[in-house]
C-alpha cells in the first residue's frame, strides 16, 4: 500500500510515439505524439504542437496544443493555445483560450456554479427576492 506514485515525475512522450489505449500518470506529462484512447490523471498534461489525440482527457490541468478530438475535463484549468484544434466538450473551473484556436463543442466553465442571469425584474420590483431553496428537514 506504500506505492505512492512519484508525483514529481516529468514524463515525456515525443512526436515519434503512437499509442493505443489508456494512459495514466501522476506527475507531469508532456505528450507530442499520437494517441487513440484516453488520458487519466490528477496531474498536469502538456500537449505539444504535434499531438493528435482521439479520445477523452480527464486530468488535473492541461495545456492544449495540437489536435484533440474528444472531451476534456480538468479539475483545475484548461488552457487552449493558439493553433490548437479541439473538437469535443470541455469542463473545468478555469479556462483560457488564445486567439487562433478552432474549438467546436460545449463548454462548461462555471467555478462558482453561478446560474444564468435572471431576466430583468420589472421596474419597482427591486425587492423581489430570489427563490429560496427549501431544504427538506429530515424527519425523526
Amino acid at each position, binding site marked *: 500500500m506504500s506505492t505512492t506514485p512519484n508525483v514529481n515525475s516529468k514524463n515525456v512522450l515525443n512526436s515519434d510515439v503512437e499509442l493505443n489505449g489508456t494512459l495514466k500518470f501522476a506527475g507531469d506529462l508532456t505528450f507530442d505524439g499520437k494517441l487513440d484512447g484516453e488520458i487519466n490523471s490528477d496531474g498536469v498534461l502538456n500537449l505539444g504542437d504535434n499531438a493528435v489525440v*482521439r479520445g477523452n482527457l480527464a486530468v488535473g490541468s492541461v495545456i492544449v496544443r495540437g489536435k484533440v478530438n474528444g472531451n476534456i475535463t480538468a479539475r483545475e484549468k484548461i488552457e487552449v493555445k493558439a493553433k490548437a484544434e479541439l473538437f469535443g466538450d470541455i469542463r473545468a473551473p478555469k479556462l483560457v483560450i488564445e486567439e487562433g484556436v478552432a474549438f467546436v*463543442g460545449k*463548454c*462548461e466553465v462555471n*467555478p462558482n456554479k453561478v446560474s444564468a442571469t435572471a431576466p430583468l425584474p420589472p421596474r419597482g420590483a427591486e425587492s423581489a427576492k430570489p427563490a429560496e431553496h427549501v431544504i427538506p428537514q429530515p424527519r425523526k
Partner: protein
Amino acid sequence: MSTTPTNDSKNVLHSDVELQGTLRFSGELSFDGKLTGDIDSDGALTLGENAIVKGNINVNSVLMRGKVTGNVTAKDKIDIKTRAELFGDIRTARLAIEEGVIFVGQSEVNPNKLTPAAPSPARAGETGKSAGPGKPVLS
C-alpha cells in the same frame, strides 16, 4: 436614399441605461447598461463590466465584459474578458478567452472549416472502440 449611416460613429450607453427591444448600430457601441433584447450590427460592440444583456448578440466583433445570457455570433472576433459571465452559445472566426470567465454553452469556432482530426488513419478495422470520443459529456 442617401442616409448612409456614419460608420465611424462612437455610440456610448452607460450603466444608467435600461433598454428593452432590439438595438442596431453600424459603427461602434460601448454598452454598459441593461438590455433585454437583441443587438444586431456589422460593427464593433464593447460590453462594459456592468452590462447585463439578456438576448442574442449578432455583430462583427465583440469585446465582452459583464453578463450575457443569450447566443453571441460575431463575424470576426469574440473577446471574452476576465470576470465576464456568458450563458449561451458562441459562433465566430476568432475567439479569445481570458482566465476567470464563466462560460456555459456551445462553441463553434472553426474559421477554416476543419473536421475533427483522425490521428491513426488507415488503421484497418478500426471499430471506434476507444471510448467514443466526441460523445458529449454535457447534457
